[in-house]
């Protein structure tokens, strides 16, 4: 399973998002963008230049932004709503619930700069609650791609799949992990590395840290499986249950609170179907101190070395 050798070059996944969206929009005139004065931060300059009438900027008004998107979908458009994740999800959560998820509107929510990408701007600009807020909503797939290849694949999947979704993107560079031409399948985990002693599960900006942690564990004689679990809902129960039964221990890591996120979602499956020792790494239920995303992830025990240590600790609990 280790045939694909990832490049260490770091990619800002917004570039893959924007390039894919522009390509899709050239093929399908019903694709439109709705944003909240977020043209630059969502890298929509190219889209705006090519399709100016199809970029609907509602200004700094997130509640209206979501409602307008629902109405555009009712009128036969396919809106991609592009906004900083904390304001998209937090400010407009009831609109997401009623207008998008409950109404099953064909709207693609794209949260940019999620997690702690805005690191030193502080907790108002962190989006470490969005998995918890969105994954409780029926009808709304919640997806955090791990690299630029999966980002492009998920943006394409969304355009061709009726119904809403939430794509959680970052601005922090990540190496490519999946092979070129990877096809996104909602609700399906990707096995990045086979292993038998423990399974490391992550998505978004944490997946590549898990891969590095698995390499460190290998050097210590520990065989770690790595799963990329981009889709938090609907979750891949089969992959999680297999991981629990075949490796007997699970570590999750996420750029999100440990309350209600990826780790919680995995734990729900493990507790119900295949209980094994687990460790959930993430932001430990606090408002983060000042620092860059890189600094904060390391501070919260998600440097690859620290993840490897956590994996060894959970293995000892078997």
């Amino acid at each position, binding site marked *: 399973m280790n045939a694909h050798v990832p490049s260490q070059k770091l990619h800002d996944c917004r570039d893959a998002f924007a390039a894919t969206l522009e390509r899709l929009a050239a093929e399908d005139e019903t694709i439109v963008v709705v944003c909240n004065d977020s043209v630059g931060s969502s890298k929509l300059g190219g889209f705006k230049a090519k399709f100016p009438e199809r970029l*609907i900027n509602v*200004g700094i008004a997130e509640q*209206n932004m979501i409602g307008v998107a629902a109405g555009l979908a*009712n009128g036969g458009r396919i*809106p991609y709503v592009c906004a900083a994740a904390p304001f998209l999800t937090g400010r407009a959560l009831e*609109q997401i619930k*009623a207008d998008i998820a409950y109404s099953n509107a064909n709207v693609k929510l794209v949260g940019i700069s999620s997690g702690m990408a805005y690191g030193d701007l502080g907790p108002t600009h962190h989006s470490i609650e969005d998995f918890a807020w969105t994954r409780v909503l029926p009808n709304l797939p919640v997806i955090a791609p791990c690299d630029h290849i999966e980002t492009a694949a998920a943006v394409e999947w969304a355009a061709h799949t009726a119904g809403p979704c939430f794509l959680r993107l970052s601005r922090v560079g990540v190496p490519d992990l999946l092979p070129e031409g990877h096809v996104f399948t909602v609700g399906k985990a990707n096995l990045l590395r086979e292993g038998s002693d423990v399974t490391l599960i992550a998505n978004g900006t944490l997946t590549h840290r898990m891969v590095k942690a698995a390499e460190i564990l290998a050097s210590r004689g520990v065989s770690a499986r790595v799963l990329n679990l981009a889709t938090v809902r609907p979750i891949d129960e089969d992959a999680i249950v297999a991981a629990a039964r075949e490796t007997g221990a699970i570590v999750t890591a996420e750029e999100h609170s440990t309350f209600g996120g990826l780790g919680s979602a995995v734990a729900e499956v493990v507790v119900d179907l295949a209980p094994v020792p687990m460790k959930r790494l993430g932001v430990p239920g606090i408002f983060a101190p000042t620092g860059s995303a890189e600094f904060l992830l390391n501070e919260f025990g998600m440097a690859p070395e620290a993840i490897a240590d956590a994996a060894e600790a959970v293995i000892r609990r078997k």
Partner: protein
Amino acid sequence: MEIDDLERMARQIRLRDLQAVFEAGAGHIGGEMSVIDVLTALYFRVLKIWPDQPKHPERDRFVLSKGHTACALYVTLAKRGFIPEDEISTFLKPYSRLNGHPNCNKVPGVETNTGPLGHGLPVAVGMAKAAKLSGAAYHTYVVTGDGEMQEGSNWEAIMAGAHFGLDNLTLLIDHNRFQQGASIADTNGLAPLRPKVEAFGWEVTEINGNAMGEVVAALEHRGSRPHCIVAHTNKGHGISFMQDTVDWHHKVPNKEQYDIAVKELSEAL
């Protein structure tokens, strides 16, 4: 349908709505009575719709943002042929499609799910904008309550409707002057409503929202800007003891009150 017939239909809808709320033991009868003339004018005169093709792409769009008056919408949809009239008796019963707030994935003719206030107008702005993008000829209508205009999201949408030049959008505010707990003036006053909306760049018309001729004329008006109709209505309109009292926001009549109300509405028929 002509004005006389519309008035007769509105009374029939009021009567059926009253019966449904009485039998279900719940509903929002005050706001239903205030908005029924508007719903009747829309569904039996103004809207270009095909009840047998509820998703027809050229249909006019209508959003009932004050979703708590769903029962009035269900009765109107039933009278217009979107759902069977028999089904009204299932209102609020377990597994009925006819929830306390309308569901677009269950009830034909409902365009978007409403219930939480301040949602319908932003969605209607998106519908109207979609028509501008696609060149579709449909018109979008949205009815909000007046208390609902306290929601900031509505003013975000009013701003956007003017900015986008949506001359294919009509907002009707059912101005019955009461919200759930008290009069609007005693809660968080909206006055002066007309100049506020005009200042946002809309054309505004004020009418008696319980006078069918005025309602039809206002809804059929077309201009060069988004159009707001401030419809002065009576909460509980048509039933003497309910009119203009805050008590009847979601109170249910007892048997004695029900009989009086049925008699009053039937006499008017």
